[in-house]
């Protein structure tokens, strides 16, 4: 399935702002942060399609995942 991943603030450093990629069905935000080497404790807010979600949220094909760090969310 295709997921668009958007990173914000310092999460972009050395990574990217937005990317659309294929993931295994049933992938979660936790799987993706782990793949991106983002420690879970640095994750402030997870949005799936602009809605508040948890790290174990089951993503669906076409979803947009936005990840904000704990500090400097903007």
């Amino acid at each position, binding site marked *: 399935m295709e997921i668009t991943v*958007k990173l914000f603030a310092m999460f972009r450093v050395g990574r990217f702002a*937005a990317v659309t990629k294929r993931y295994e069905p049933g992938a979660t935000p936790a799987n993706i942060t782990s793949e991106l080497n983002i420690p879970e404790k640095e994750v*402030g807010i997870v*949005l799936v399609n*602009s809605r*508040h979600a948890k790290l174990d949220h089951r993503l669906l094909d076409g979803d947009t995942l*936005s990840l904000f760090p*704990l500090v400097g*969310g*903007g």
Partner: protein
Amino acid sequence: MVVITDTPIDPSTTYGLISNKTAGSVVLHYAVVKKDGGSGAPTDSIEYRFEEGAEEELDAIVAELLLKWKLEDVLLVRREGCLHVGDIISLVAASSPNSEDAFAACRHGIARLKKMTTVCKRERLAE
């Protein structure tokens, strides 16, 4: 949830867009075009255009509110296009177990919408 729309914001559907499974309080703020916009002459219309990155900017505001206050959900809606007196410009809504958090987040959300950098606002005064 974040919406940028070129069709009128319909207040009859907004309550259903905010999740409130645990929330005891749902606060909604509608900003509406008023006749006297403070510039002396009466307002005829205001045009709002959004640039690329506007959705991301709205997402960042949602994240900021969720980080700062105890909220279940946040909804930001902005209208694009030419708006006349009485038309809804924006909606900021928050649900929370506490009315204090819902109110504080809603007020901060309004302040943040006003400072958006990806919106272009042009006011036309009535002759």
